């Protein structure tokens, strides 16, 4: 399969199509809307389920296998926000705090991009390591911390770290991982029909909603101009490449490496915005939400993931 074929396959998956359906709903001014609790329920379900699945897998792998991947992830967690910061300052020419806000977002992870990457590699016949959800937690935190440090927003730093660590995304994923790890295959047998089988369908609905939210942000991108668009596509390519290299170095499988690349390439739009909004109120949220949600997220979903996979196949040989 060449890259184009991969992109086609990816484009025609129900998940990606549902995302575009959501975009369409907004463009056509449909009165379609997801009740807010449905959004919350789906994200809760998806995060816990992915952690749980990972935990069950983890219960079957040696913990020492986790060491190098964890190290690679922490390295990514330090490098990517700095990279994003430098690019934002030089390329977007934004103020220090604005660059820092962007760094916080591009240094941490979008859980849905992570899920989409998992689904993609699975559909391509590979499987990622069971501990990947743990790595998400490792990658989520440093990005936000370094972002706030770059903005010299020290006052709120401790609070911000705490908020990200026990924030619902990280908590649910790590919590699910723990539950899965402790209850193992036996536990899995009991709840598989709820947490595993319907997973991709739930993800499809969720992506429809995300498509609507992203489309509503499109006008912000337009206002902020082409540079933001370029920033939102180049940074993920850079971060994704870095993720592949480090993943390869860490001895991950091809599947795991691609997922790590997608994680590095993604920009948070749940944990980071809340932390940044509180700590850096002077930065307009349109800047970072538009960039991460309306540019980088669809880019990764549609082109990025198949691309990292194509590159990964070269790298893994």
């Amino acid at each position, binding site marked *: 399969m060449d890259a184009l074929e991969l992109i086609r396959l990816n484009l025609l998956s129900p998940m990606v199509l549902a995302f575009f359906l959501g975009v369409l709903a907004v463009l056509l001014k449909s009165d379609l809307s997801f009740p807010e609790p449905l959004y*919350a329920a789906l994200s809760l379900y998806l995060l816990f389920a992915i952690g749980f699945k990972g935990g069950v897998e983890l219960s079957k792998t040696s913990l020492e296998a986790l060491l190098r991947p964890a190290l690679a992830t922490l390295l990514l967690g330090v490098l990517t926000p700095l990279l994003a910061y430098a690019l934002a300052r030089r390329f977007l020419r934004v103020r220090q705090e604005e660059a820092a806000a962007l760094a916080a977002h591009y240094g941490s992870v979008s859980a849905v991009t992570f899920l989409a990457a998992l689904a993609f590699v699975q559909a391509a016949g590979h499987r990622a390591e069971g501990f990947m959800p743990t790595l998400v937690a490792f990658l989520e935190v440093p990005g936000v911390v370094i972002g706030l440090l770059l903005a010299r927003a020290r006052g709120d730093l401790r609070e911000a770290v705490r908020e990200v660590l026990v924030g619902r995304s990280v908590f649910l994923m790590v919590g699910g991982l723990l539950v899965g790890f402790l209850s193992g295959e036996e536990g899995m047998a009991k709840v598989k029909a709820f947490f595993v089988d319907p997973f991709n369908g739930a993800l499809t609905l969720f992506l429809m909603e995300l498509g609507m939210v992203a489309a509503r942000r499109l006008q912000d991108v337009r206002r902020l101009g082409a540079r933001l668009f370029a920033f939102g596509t180049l940074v993920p390519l850079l971060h994704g490449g870095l993720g592949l290299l480090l993943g390869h170095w860490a001895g991950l499988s091809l599947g795991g490496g691609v997922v790590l690349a997608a994680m590095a390439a993604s920009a948070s739009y749940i944990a980071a915005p809340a932390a940044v*909004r509180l700590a850096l109120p002077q930065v307009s*949220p349109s800047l970072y939400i538009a960039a991460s949600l309306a540019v980088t997220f669809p880019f990764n979903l549609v082109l990025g993931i198949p691309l990292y996979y194509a590159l990964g196949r070269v790298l893994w040989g």
Partner: protein
Amino acid sequence: MELVRLKLVTIVAEAVLEHRLVEEIKRLGAKGYTLVDARGEGSRGLRTMDWEGKNIRLETIVSEEVALRILARLQEAYFPHYAVVAFVENVEVVRGDKYV
């Protein structure tokens, strides 16, 4: 039945501020508050029910003094950067000592 005149301060703000605002008004002397989820539009554009943009509507019955303190604090620390609106009304309550 004796009715006491007090102030009702209503604050509409982006949801991310919920915990902070509750802390602030308690610190400034409010003895209670009531809160509902809301959506709205103002100078910063539409705030929908999407997670990142929903509003809260917070009400607290307080003495005039506390009301002014709350407004002053909002003006100093919130109005410049956050999507926040606040207004004050006269209300009458039974059991006025409950609120001061």
